């Protein structure tokens, strides 16, 4: 038996999915967390059930790529039973989709989720009456505490399809709503469905029906505005919300740098430089001078023909030294704390407010508030960020978002290495990148044809984060990072070291010297790290730190590495998500890199520092 979890974005489908299947799917209280379907298995009353978590959709007419996935799932599984998840505090909106599903002849059960929030807001829904009007079971649920889910599954096992004409009949509205008078048709006499009731509804008819059902089943009581509500309001108003957002970002960055500094500088630098590196230098088979030793442990430095061993893992550039140090010693603590804070902000309910706050600003670059979701995800890793662009409605928006994400948003690993290698300039580099994000977004919005629709954003109430959910999200995201990062860094160092050994990097540096030295104003040796940047940008930044150059050249080189090309993971995700548009995006990307880095070089020349 197959069950589809269907409903608007951000109504708790993924939480229900996790509770039913015990699977680990990331759920957040803003739309766009699920942009592709997820499958899981459960056993209920002796029956094996396959549960499919479908991306959120507002109706059965798709508006974006995530909604198309939802519709495809429905078309591919016509016999599947459906749990239509509705936010109990916004019954009218969810009913539209439920009626659409009933009309198409699907067997559905309605889960009135967030029942606790509705109770707190003094909204009561007569579930018995609603169920009798719709002709389908209606179960109040609180997904986060699994309340009502067992009953939901019990009712799902026995559910049968109904029809829209029957809903009219139960409301005894067919004549009233069609403006005709029924003279007692056979359907009415049999008590089944009136002949006047349409079997297919127009959008207006469906909304009229929704309004009528809601009028008969929902009672909104007096609600006192609480302190939580007042703070919720103030954090989305520009005048009060902007200072609050500045403070939250301050806390985010401060905790990020304090924690990663403590773990990396306090302990892991010692562990790697004082124990791991000397141990490998002493015991690695072959020892200094052999090819395998140079690639795996220490490339060393040659001064006046004398080879000297590296003193730190960062400068040794071996697969087992720099490779492990970068990913475990520097990037892992940073990525871990980034994901902890992201999960907390998500679960408290602040991110949707940030989206509302940024809406006006992001409209200037052809996007809307929810573009903040792919942007923030990209600060962890660009790959899920590019995937999350599916929540944007038009091709133009997706193109603009994907392009500026790939160019201007550094991932957590990159930021961590920057913070380790050039702590005093990280702020400047980040500011220059974010400036580029808005400047080029602004231009792309004017150049690229297409529309930017307005959207209505839902803001959930502030709530206490559930530790178990935060822990699960952090573990999943960190595991996924480790799985992606370690093989690529290892491979990156291996390839670059082999190319160095073969003299290929020197040849490349010589050939590209006019561009590097003339246009970008950086040493020609930057060619090597740029090659590595295609595999991992964090690795490339670490390699840059070993090249002798002025602080201005170092800033330019880091900006260049950050924006010149996406890393391999992002490259393939952009190809998958963007299709043909990807090549357009790539062309923009390369021209932007030339312009933005060349401009920075020009700034240094004008300031007389280069």
């Amino acid at each position, binding site marked *: 038996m197959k069950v589809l979890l269907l409903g608007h974005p951000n109504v708790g489908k993924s939480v229900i999915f996790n509770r039913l299947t015990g699977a680990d799917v990331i759920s957040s209280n803003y739309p766009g967390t699920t942009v592709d379907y997820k499958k899981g298995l459960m056993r209920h009353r002796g029956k094996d059930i396959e549960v499919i978590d479908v991306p959120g959709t507002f109706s059965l007419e798709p508006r974006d790529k995530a909604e198309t996935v939802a519709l495809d799932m429905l078309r591919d599984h016509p016999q599947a039973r459906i749990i239509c998840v509705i936010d109990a505090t916004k019954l009218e909106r969810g009913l539209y989709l439920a009626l659409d599903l009933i009309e198409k002849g699907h067997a559905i059960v309605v889960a009135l989720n967030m029942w606790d929030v509705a109770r707190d807001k003094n909204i009561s829904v007569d579930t018995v009456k609603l169920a009798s009007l719709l002709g389908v079971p209606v179960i109040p649920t609180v997904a986060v505490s699994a309340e009502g889910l067992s009953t939901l599954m019990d009712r799902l096992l026995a559910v049968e399809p109904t029809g829209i004409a029957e809903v009219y009949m139960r409301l005894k509205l067919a004549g009233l709503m069609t403006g005709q008078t029924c003279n007692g048709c056979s359907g009415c006499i049999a008590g089944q469905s009136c002949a006047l009731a349409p079997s297919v509804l127009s959008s207006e008819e469906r909304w009229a029906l929704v309004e009528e059902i809601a009028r008969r089943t929902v009672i909104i009581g*007096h609600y006192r505005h609480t302190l939580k509500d007042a703070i919720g309001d*103030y954090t989305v108003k520009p005048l*009060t919300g902007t200072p*609050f957002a500045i403070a939250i970002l*301050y806390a985010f960055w401060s905790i990020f740098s*304090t924690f990663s500094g403590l773990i990396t500088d306090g302990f892991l630098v010692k562990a790697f430089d004082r124990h791991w590196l000397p141990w490998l230098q002493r015991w690695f088979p072959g020892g200094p001078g052999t090819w395998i030793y140079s690639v795996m442990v220490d490339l060393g430095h040659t001064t006046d023909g004398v080879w000297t061993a590296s003193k730190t893992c960062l400068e040794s550039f071996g697969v087992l030294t720099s490779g492990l140090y970068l990913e475990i010693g520097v990037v892992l603590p940073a990525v871990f704390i980034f994901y902890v804070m992201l999960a907390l902000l998500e679960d408290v309910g602040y991110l949707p407010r940030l989206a509302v706050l940024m809406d006006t600003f992001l409209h200037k670059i052809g996007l809307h508030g929810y573009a903040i979701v792919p942007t923030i995800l990209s600060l962890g890793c660009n790959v899920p960020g590019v995937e999350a662009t599916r929540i944007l409605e038009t091709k133009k928006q997706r193109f603009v978002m994907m392009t500026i994400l790939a160019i201007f948003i550094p991932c957590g690993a990159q930021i961590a290495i920057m913070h380790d290698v050039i702590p005093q300039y990280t702020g400047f580099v980040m500011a220059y990148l974010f400036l580029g994000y808005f400047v080029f977004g602004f231009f792309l919005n004017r150049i690229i044809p297409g529309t930017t629709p307005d959207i209505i954003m839902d803001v959930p109430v502030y709530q206490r984060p559930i530790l178990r959910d935060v822990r699960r999200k952090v573990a999943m995201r960190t595991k996924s990072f480790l799985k992606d990062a370690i093989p690529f860094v290892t491979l990156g160092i291996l390839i670059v070291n082999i190319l160095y050994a073969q003299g290929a990097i020197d040849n490349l540096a010589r050939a590209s010297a006019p561009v590097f030295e003339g246009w970008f104003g950086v040493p020609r040796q930057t060619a090597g790290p740029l090659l590595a940047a295609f595999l991992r940008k964090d690795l490339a930044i670490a390699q840059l730190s070993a090249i002798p150059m002025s602080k201005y050249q170092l800033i330019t080189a880091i900006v260049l590495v950050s924006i010149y090309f996406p890393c391999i993971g992002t490259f393939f995700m952009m190809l998958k998500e963007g299709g043909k548009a990807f090549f357009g995006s790539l062309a923009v990307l390369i021209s932007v890199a030339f312009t933005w880095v060349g401009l920075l070089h020009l700034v240094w020349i004008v300031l007389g520092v280069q």
Partner: protein
Amino acid sequence: MVRLWQGYFALLGAAVLFCGLLEFLSAAAGHQLAFPPAVFSTGAFRGLWGGLVTIFSGIFLLKGIRDFGEVHQLAKLLMGCILLWIVAATDILALIAAAIPNAQPELWFNSLSAFLQSFAPPYTPAVILLPFSLPVMLCLHISGGAKPTADGSHTLENR
């Protein structure tokens, strides 16, 4: 009682705003100000950005004292305190993080005495002002028995 609360938070708000301005301006000028046991942060991050957050905190506190006790005004007061707590908490976290590892390359952890010594003054203004912002919790507790205003929101009773 309400006047007493208003006076208290007006003083706190003014002190927070003043400290924030001093921190921001001294960081912008590149000077480090110190009035033992207070020392002002420097640099673009803690000095400028942190100073800016402290300024916002002071403004929120001062804005929250009008119509004292009304739920929206209480929210402003609480937001002012939250902003101050953010700056103070990140400063304390930085202190703790600096106190745990040993600076000697051959040792991992600081001794207990060295650890405790790291918490000796001077402190940043946000850390010093932190305890003075905690009475807001009492204020919120009292407002639990608040009366609704005409528009249905709560007020702190005049007691």
